């Protein structure tokens, strides 16, 4: 193996590891607190990408606003004084040519994903919390939710590929003999940063502490006065935002499609099991390990067998360490 290949594998492993980590940490957070698997997590990646695209790109909100702008301008004369007031607004709308850019797109995506996460909790999860067989029921309701969102997005935005701006544009970064795209570099840097922020939030903020408390002992959490019934939706919101961020990053690398996120979800499950259910550090380490296994098996064996290696690894881990590589400490 050349040095160049090694750098390529490391860079690739870091990028895919980062994306898995973003996804899997949300999945793990929800599992840890609510004890349920959210099968709509992949769809949230898609929602994140679409909502960012909708605001930031030319084809999105700007296009949708055009008719409104046009009608304001066209009708302003008849509307008299009010029309005179509205006219600049209409002209401004018409002057928007390139969308609002990611500066507005990303916050909008975060907002959207948070909201969708909350709605999802209220409709698909909350009615079943505490009922017998809830974990099973929630699997099917969240699958249904994912299907609803996927198909809904296809109805609203159509089946055509969309494409999100890259956050950074410019020539790739040269490291040793290998070059790495700026978007990838950004992902490699931003993900640990995001996860560090998540860590700070969980470790030091009052709400973060409460989330962890509920995850570890919800009975006792009641007794110290935590409003457990608010923590569950909060967890969903946080995890949805993480998925949405993953979507924004993915959307800058590849096309945006209603079906995107499904494959990432699959790998995120592998990661979560690999790292130990509900253990956040385990999940993050697991994400990068899986990222590297994937990249290096693609190089050493064949890209084709990479998923086989991953699933075989998963099965072996499940057989010999059912609680994951990092899990198994809590009883």
């Amino acid at each position, binding site marked *: 193996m050349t040095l160049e290949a090694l750098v390529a594998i490391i860079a690739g492993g870091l990028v895919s590891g980062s994306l898995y980590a973003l996804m899997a940490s949300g999945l793990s957070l929800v599992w840890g607190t609510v004890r349920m698997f959210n099968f709509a997590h992949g769809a949230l990646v898609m929602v994140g990408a679409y909502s960012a695209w909708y605001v930031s790109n030319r084809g999105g909100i700007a296009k949708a606003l055009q008719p409104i702008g046009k009608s304001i301008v066209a009708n302003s004369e008849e509307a008299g004084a009010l029309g005179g007031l509205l006219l600049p607004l209409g002209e401004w709308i018409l002057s928007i040519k390139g969308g609002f850019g990611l500066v507005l797109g990303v916050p909008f995506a975060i907002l959207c994903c948070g909201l969708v996460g909350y709605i999802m909790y209220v409709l698909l999860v909350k009615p079943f919390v505490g009922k017998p067989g809830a974990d099973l029921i929630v699997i099917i309701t969240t699958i249904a939710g994912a299907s609803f969102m996927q198909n809904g997005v296809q109805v609203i935005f159509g089946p055509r590929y969309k494409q999100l701006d890259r956050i950074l544009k410019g020539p790739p970064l040269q490291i040793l003999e290998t070059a790495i795209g700026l978007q990838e570099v950004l992902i490699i840097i931003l993900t640990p940063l995001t996860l560090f922020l998540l860590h700070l939030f969980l470790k030091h903020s*009052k709400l973060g*502490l*409460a989330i*962890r*408390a509920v995850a*570890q*002992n919800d*009975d*006792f*959490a*009641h*007794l*110290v*006065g*935590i*409003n457990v019934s608010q923590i569950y939706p909060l967890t969903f919101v946080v995890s949805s935002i993480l998925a949405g961020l993953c979507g924004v990053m993915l959307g800058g690398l590849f096309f945006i499609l209603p079906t995107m996120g499904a494959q990432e979800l699959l790998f995120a499950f592998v990661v979560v099991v690999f790292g130990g259910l509900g253990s956040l550090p385990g999940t993050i380490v697991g994400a990068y390990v899986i990222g590297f296994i994937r990249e290096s098996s693609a190089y050493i064996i064949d890209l084709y067998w990479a998923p086989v290696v991953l699933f075989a690894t998963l099965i072996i881990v499940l057989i010999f360490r059912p609680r994951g590589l990092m899990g198994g*400490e*809590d009883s």
Partner: protein
Amino acid sequence: MLFQVESLVSGYGKIDVVRSLSLHVDEGEHVGLFGPNGHGKTTLLRTVSGLIPAKAGKISFRGEDISNLDPRVIVERGLIHVPQGNQLFPQMTVQENLTLGAYVSRSDSHKASNFEKVFALFPRLEERRSQRARTLSGGERQMLSIGVGLMGMPELLLLDEPSVGLAPLIKEELARAIAEIAATGVSMIVVDQDVELLLGICDRLYLIEKGAVSLETADVSQVDQAEILEMYFGKVTG
């Protein structure tokens, strides 16, 4: 009267564990609950703190009905339940556990001084403040559990079996600490099987049998030891 339970009924599913139980606690009073296992002591505390619903009867605190309120609201009023056994946040540090004890708004702003109080009471916790709860010994966990309760600035503290499973020396240390807390004027209900421990702390004792109060002794010094012994061992003298 600070706290009163009237004809309370509660339990799990169809089974009633607490069957028409009444008791009360006066301001500043320390009341002990004892009796055999499985007769409803813990269930009573869980009902009082809102973890399980009351099926009938009434629980009032400072004259207000608090039965079936959200546990959070009950904690907010200063009624704090320190549960039995290893009920902690096991993966969190001692410090974090204590911080969570001051989660509700009434105690949040007094966190710093309460930390001092808890550490003064249990110096061992201060030594171990960055250690995870699950790595503590049984006695330390019990101390932490009580510490978490104190962080909530209780007006009525419910202690469930603080001495269970502890070695004699640690039991004594803990008993002293509870007595110290009692001396600060906090009202208390202490549940324990160890009558001796209760005798050292409480002003008044209730014997709980089959989900109801079967004996109340206002004067602790007059507690009939023989009766208690018979309850535990049956009539074996002879």
